[in-house]
């Protein structure tokens, strides 16, 4: 077992297909442990936000582009899908796809002006653009978006089922989407494209010296994450039967950023862990709604200061240590016992 790792193997840990499949199966059984419509509904919402956070983490953590306007793509996907359901009586399945396309278009549009910018300026421009989208939706007086009151649409999916089974069906549908998105992002991150994106994130100068086009890749990263965010937005609209401008703004953004950072910015499973954890905190504090954001803020600071790479990363490290301990007799670990092979490997030197 002393085969020398090829460079690519040294960069990536093997995908844990068996463990992942077992976890997905476990997750699919959760609605039976939690046999209430309300509880399952909370889980559905959580999974929809997981899709959003996966897409955001792709552009923010993996591509390293400071995009703080992701909620604009989410809202455009949601409103676009909703409007098409109302006016074009599109079937909900197609509305999801349409939402994704809307998100992609806006993402590309948003990526173009950021091409000359870097770092904090990118975040300000994307954030400002998201604010414009929110204010335009909110101030729209022509009646298209319904303004501040929101856009009521029709509930389209699983209507024939009774409420509990409909919510369960939603749960499995969104779970499947989470799995597909997560797998797609994991594959993308391991592909040459993902390698290029992370190279540009860690050292833009080195990347472009090696012939990676920073602008094209940035637009591509925006487009991919915009598509997923648009799908998440359309899911939100179709599930709730309505969408309002309050899905955007400072408070929602702070909650999603908390989810991503707690889980681990730039790690594949981070958004899933973080979204679940934050939802758990929110549910635990449901009787004290005023304290939710206070607690979340304190947790966020504590995580950043004490567990800077997020929970998913630390959990992975613990698991790696156990695996290494189990393999200790067979092979002598080469080099320092650092998790250098992991996807989340730090951004040294920036």
């Amino acid at each position, binding site marked *: 077992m002393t085969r020398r790792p090829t460079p690519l193997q040294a960069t990536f840990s093997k995908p844990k297909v068996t463990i992942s499949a077992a976890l997905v199966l476990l997750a699919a059984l959760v609605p039976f442990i939690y046999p209430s419509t309300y509880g399952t509904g909370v889980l559905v919402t959580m999974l929809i936000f997981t899709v959003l956070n996966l897409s955001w983490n792709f552009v923010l953590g993996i591509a390293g582009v400071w995009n703080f306007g992701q909620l604009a793509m989410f809202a455009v996907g949601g409103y676009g899908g909703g409007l098409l359901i109302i006016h074009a009586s599109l079937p909900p399945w197609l509305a999801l796809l349409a939402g994704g396309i809307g998100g992609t278009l806006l993402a590309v549009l948003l990526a173009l*002006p950021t091409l000359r910018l870097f*770092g904090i300026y990118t975040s300000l421009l994307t954030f400002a653009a998201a604010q414009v989208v929110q204010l335009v939706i909110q101030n729209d007086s022509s009646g298209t978006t319904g303004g501040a009151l929101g856009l009521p649409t029709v509930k389209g999916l699983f209507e024939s089922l009774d409420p509990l089974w409909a919510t369960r069906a939603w749960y499995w549908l969104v779970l499947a989407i989470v799995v597909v998105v997560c797998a797609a992002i994991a594959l993308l991150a391991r592909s040459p494209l993902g390698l290029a994106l992370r190279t540009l994130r860690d050292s833009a100068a080195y990347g472009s010296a090696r012939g990676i086009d920073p602008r094209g890749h940035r637009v591509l990263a925006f487009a991919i994450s915009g598509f997923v965010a648009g799908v998440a937005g359309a899911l939100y609209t179709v599930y709730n039967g309505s969408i309002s401008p309050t899905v955007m703004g400072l408070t929602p953004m702070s909650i999603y950023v908390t989810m991503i950072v707690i889980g681990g910015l730039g790690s594949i499973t981070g958004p899933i862990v973080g979204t679940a954890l934050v939802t758990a905190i929110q549910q635990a504090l449901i009787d004290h709604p005023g304290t939710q954001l206070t607690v979340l803020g304190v947790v966020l*600071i504590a995580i950043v200061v004490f567990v800077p790479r997020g929970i998913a990363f630390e959990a992975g490290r613990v698991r790696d240590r156990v695996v290494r301990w189990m393999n200790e007799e067979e092979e002598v670990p080469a080099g320092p016992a650092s998790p250098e092979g992991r996807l989340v490997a730090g951004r040294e030197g920036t």
Partner: protein
Amino acid sequence: MSDILSILVSTVVLGSIYGLVALGMTLIYGILRVLDMSQGSMVMVGGFVGWAVMTSAGLSPWLAIVAAFAATFALGVLTQVVSVQPLIGRRGTDFEMITFITTFAVAMVLSNLALQFFGPRQKNVPELVGGSIHLYESVSLPYQSIVMTAIALALMLGFALFLNRSRYGIAIRAVAQDLDAARLMGVPIKRVFPLVMGFASAIAGVAGVFLATQYFASPTAGDQPLLIALIVVIFGGLGSLQGAIVAAYAIGLIQAAASVYVSTTWALPILYGVIVLVLIIRPQGIAGRSLEARL
């Protein structure tokens, strides 16, 4: 004529208040490379301190300004120590992004604590001084606006003097220009950084008292000023003090003109549109210097 006059009057008032908030943000960015998202909360806290001193305790408005200055100074120092200091020089993280997020978390905590303590209701804060000068037809200039503008200008001027003349000011500028060289010259970094954030927050706190007298004190009172201050600092070029002050009045003018000629609800979208354009055409802001060597 009366349109133009009223635009000018609100430009001066709005510009002065925005200038105060943006001054703090740009200073913190210039020195610490932190885009401090908690500045909006300092505005909000300043408003509540003003309300507590003036309405609850019934004391003089001047005392309210001093109290707000002191309270937000302490809060700014605390924010720096808790959410920025531990991250300085840490390997493997992007300092600018991670402090953007932690100061954001501080803002979350502060505004929700305010919500818990003071409730969601807007609190009326009395004027600093009553009365007004009649200018033209329906346009009048309240004394309050004159006083606020004067204090804001005095604070900006005082800050410029402090930075250019005093020992600490020179130390702060040295840190902004070259951290390592400043350290080698014996500048106590661990004292300078909290001090900068304290002063910047204190200025935002004073702006908060002013804003509360114009509008209300409420837990969300800091959101809009934060967004506007972000626009101002981009427009002026992050880290540039002169740029921020010029930009504050320019943004005040755009907002006032948009409110009069278009409508108040579209003033903010227009501002954001302007800022997106500015970033596309001139990414480094109107001050136009490179990212290094500011201040």
